[in-house]
C-alpha cells in the first residue's frame, strides 16, 4: 500500500498498549477478530444497501396507511411498525446493538442524500481547513442553545401523549413518519449534517440513552493515534468518507449516545483506527453528563409506567382518558396529559432529587467518624456535590428503564403477534391472501409464560441497576461504608420501582 502524505507512517507494532480509557471491563474488537466485518463496514455502498430495504418498507407502510384499511390491526403500518418493529427495536436492537437502527433508518436518508448529492460515493474537496466534503444546502450551524436533547425530550413526550392515536390509526402514523421525513429533509438543506437525528428525532433520544448500556460500541482504537492524527478525517471527512454526520469526534468518544453507527468514520479515518467493540450488556463505566439526558431517563421510566397502566393495568378511567378519540372525553384527556407531563418533568425528577439529597446526607452522616483518606479527597472522591450525585445516580435508571420497557413490550408482542402473520398475507386490508395466512385467527402466544418472562426481565434490570449503582457509589466515595449509605436511598427507590412494575404486570 502506498503511503499518502496525510497518513501517519508510524508502525502500529512497536507502540505500547493502545490508550483506550473507555475500555474497563471485558471488550473485544470485533472488526479485528472478524476481518470481513471490518471490510463490510468500510464498503461505501454498505449503508445505502442497509437503508434501501427499510426505505422500501417505510414507503410501503405509508402507502398502506393512505390506501389501505383504516383498521389498525389489519393494516401493515400499525402491525409492522408498532408491534413488530417496536418489539425488535426495544428487545434486540437497542440492548444488543445500540443505535444500529440508525444505520439503516430511512427517515433522514432523503435529506442526507440531497445534502450530499450522492447516494454511495463521496464528494471531496481538498481544502486546507475545515470540512473536506462539500455539502449542498445552506450549511448553517445548529444554534448552540439547542445543542442538547431537550427538543427531543419534548417531541417525544408530545408523541407519547398522543400514543393511543399513533398506535391505532394508520393515517396518524403515516403523518408522523412522513412528517419526520419531510422535516429531516428541510433541516438537511438549512443546517449542516444530520441535525434532525441529533437534536429532534423523537426516537433518537431514547435510542441514544439506552444505547449507553448496549453491547456494541464504535470507538477509536487508540486515543494516542487520534491525538497525533493531523487530518481528523473521522470528523472532517476525507476522500474515502464523509465527515461524521452526527458531529462526533472519535478521538475523544467514550460514550455511545450520539454516534449513529453510520460507519463513515471507518471509511474516512486514514489510520484504520476505528473499531467496533463488543462488551457484555449493562456496562457500568459510562455516565450521564447533562441534565437533559437525566430527564430523558426519567421520562422514559415514567412513560413505561404510564403505558403499563393504560394498556395493561386495571384502571379503566385512566385508560379512557388516554383514548380520547374513542371516548371524545377531551377533559379527561387533558387531565391525563397534565398528569403525564407533570410526572415526567416535575414529580419524578423532584422525588429523585430529594432522594439524592438524602443519599448525600446519609453518606456524610455515616462517614463522620471515618477518616477520608487524603488521596481520595485529593482526586475529587471526597465530597461529591449534589449535581454530580444527581447525574451519576440517574444512570442506573437507564438499564432499569430499558428492561422495564422490554418487560412492558413483551405482552404486546405475544398478545398481538398473530396479527403479524395475517397482515403479511393481506398488508392493506384489501382482502388479499398472498401467503395463505390471511385468515389465521387472532391468538395470544404463550400467555401463561409472559408474566414469568416479564418478572425475569424486571429483576434482571434491578440487578444491573444495583450493580451499576454500587460501581458509581464506590467511585464517588471510595469508602465502603459511605458508599453503602449513599447508595441505600437510591437502591430503595429502584427496588420500589421494580416491585411496582412487578405488581402491574403479574397482578
Amino acid at each position, binding site marked *: 500500500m502506498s503511503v499518502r502524505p496525510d497518513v501517519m507512517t508510524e508502525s502500529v507494532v512497536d507502540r505500547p498498549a493502545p490508550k483506550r480509557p473507555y475500555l474497563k471491563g471485558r471488550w473485544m474488537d470485533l472488526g479485528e477478530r472478524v476481518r470481513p466485518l471490518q471490510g463490510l463496514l468500510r464498503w461505501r*455502498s454498505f449503508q445505502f444497501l442497509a437503508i434501501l430495504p427499510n426505505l422500501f418498507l417505510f*414507503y410501503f407502510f405509508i402507502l*398502506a396507511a*393512505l390506501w389501505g384499511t*383504516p383498521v389498525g390491526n389489519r393494516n401493515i403500518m400499525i402491525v409492522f411498525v408498532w408491534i413488530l418493529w417496536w418489539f425488535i427495536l426495544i428487545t434486540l436492537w437497542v440492548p444488543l446493538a445500540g443505535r444500529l437502527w440508525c444505520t439503516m433508518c430511512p427517515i433522514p436518508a432523503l435529506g442526507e442524500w440531497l445534502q450530499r448529492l450522492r447516494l454511495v460515493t463521496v464528494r471531496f474537496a481538498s481544502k486546507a481547513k475545515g470540512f473536506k466534503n462539500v455539502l449542498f444546502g445552506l450549511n448553517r450551524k445548529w444554534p448552540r442553545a439547542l445543542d442538547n436533547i431537550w427538543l427531543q425530550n419534548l417531541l417525544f413526550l408530545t408523541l407519547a401523549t398522543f400514543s393511543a392515536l399513533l398506535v391505532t390509526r394508520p393515517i396518524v402514523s403515516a403523518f408522523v413518519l412522513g412528517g419526520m421525513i419531510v422535516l429531516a429533509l428541510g433541516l438537511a438543506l438549512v443546517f449542516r449534517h444530520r441535525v434532525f437525528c441529533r437534536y429532534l428525532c423523537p426516537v433518537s433520544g431514547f435510542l441514544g440513552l439506552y444505547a449507553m448500556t448496549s453491547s456494541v460500541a464504535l470507538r477509536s482504537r487508540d486515543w494516542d493515534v487520534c491525538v497525533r492524527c493531523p487530518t481528523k478525517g473521522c470528523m472532517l471527512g476525507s476522500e474515502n468518507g464523509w465527515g461524521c454526520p452526527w458531529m462526533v469526534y472519535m478521538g475523544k468518544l467514550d460514550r455511545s449516545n450520539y454516534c449513529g453507527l453510520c460507519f463513515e468514520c471507518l471509511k474516512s479515518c486514514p489510520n484504520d483506527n476505528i473499531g467496533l467493540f463488543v462488551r457484555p450488556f449493562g456496562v457500568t463505566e459510562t455516565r450521564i453528563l447533562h441534565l437533559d439526558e437525566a430527564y430523558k431517563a426519567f421520562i422514559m421510566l415514567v412513560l413505561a409506567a404510564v403505558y403499563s397502566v393504560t394498556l395493561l393495568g386495571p384502571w379503566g378511567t385512566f385508560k379512557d382518558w388516554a383514548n380520547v378519540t374513542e371516548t371524545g372525553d377531551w377533559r379527561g384527556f387533558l387531565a391525563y396529559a397534565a398528569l403525564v407531563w407533570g410526572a415526567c418533568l416535575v414529580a419524578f425528577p423532584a422525588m429523585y432529587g430529594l432522594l439524592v439529597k438524602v443519599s448525600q446526607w446519609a453518606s456524610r452522616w455515616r462517614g463522620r467518624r471515618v477518616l477520608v483518606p487524603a488521596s481520595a479527597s485529593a482526586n475529587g472522591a471526597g465530597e461529591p456535590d449534589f449535581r454530580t450525585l444527581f447525574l451519576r445516580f440517574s444512570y442506573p435508571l437507564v438499564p432499569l428503564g430499558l428492561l422495564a420497557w422490554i418487560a412492558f413490550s413483551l405482552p404486546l408482542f405475544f398478545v398481538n403477534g398473530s396479527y403479524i402473520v395475517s397482515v403479511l398475507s393481506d398488508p392493506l386490508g384489501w382482502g*388479499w391472501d398472498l401467503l395463505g395466512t390471511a385468515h389465521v385467527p387472532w391468538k395470544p402466544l404463550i400467555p401463561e409464560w409472559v408474566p414469568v418472562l416479564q418478572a425475569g426481565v424486571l429483576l434482571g434490570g434491578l440487578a444491573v441497576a444495583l450493580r451499576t449503582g454500587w460501581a458509581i457509589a464506590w467511585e464517588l466515595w471510595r469508602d465502603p461504608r459511605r458508599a453503602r449509605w449513599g447508595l441505600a436511598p437510591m437502591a430503595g427507590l429502584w427496588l420500589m420501582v421494580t416491585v411496582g412494575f412487578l405488581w402491574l404486570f403479574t397482578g
Partner: protein
Amino acid sequence: MRWKDGLKEGVALATLLLVFVGLPWALRAYENGQVRRLATGRPVFTVYANAAFGTWTTTPLVGWTYFWRKPEPAHIQVRAGQPFVLRITAVDVHHSFGIPQLGIGPYDVEPGRFLKLELKVDEPGLYTFMCYTVCGRHHEKMMGTLEVVGEGQ
C-alpha cells in the same frame, strides 16, 4: 466524478426511482388483477360499513379518506337476472350484512376483512340491506339500497 463512481450513483439512483414508482404501481396492478379475477365479467361493487355515520356506502373509505369524507348511503343499481359481486368490508367495528327481502344473510362483516357475495336477483324492485349487529349509536340508520331494474326500464 470518476466514471466508476458515476456508474455506482446511476445504479443506486435507478434502484431508488424503481422503488418509488414501482411499488405503488405493483400494488394497484395486483389489486386490479384480484378484482378482475373475482369479477369474471360481472360488475363488482365495493361496500364499506361505517359505524360512526351509520352507513353502508360505496364512497371509498380508506386510510386517508376515512376521517374527513362524508360517506353517502349506498345505492347499487343492477339489472334483473344479471349476476354481480358485492365486496363488503368494515372500516371500524364488527357489522353484519343482510337483505331480508331476498333472504340473504346475515353474514359477518369484520373490520379490515372482505366479505365476497356473488348474487343474482331476478325480480325487479327496490331492496334494502341492513346491519344485524348493534354496532354503535347509529346502528338503526344503517341501510343501503339495491335497485334491481327490469328489462326495458
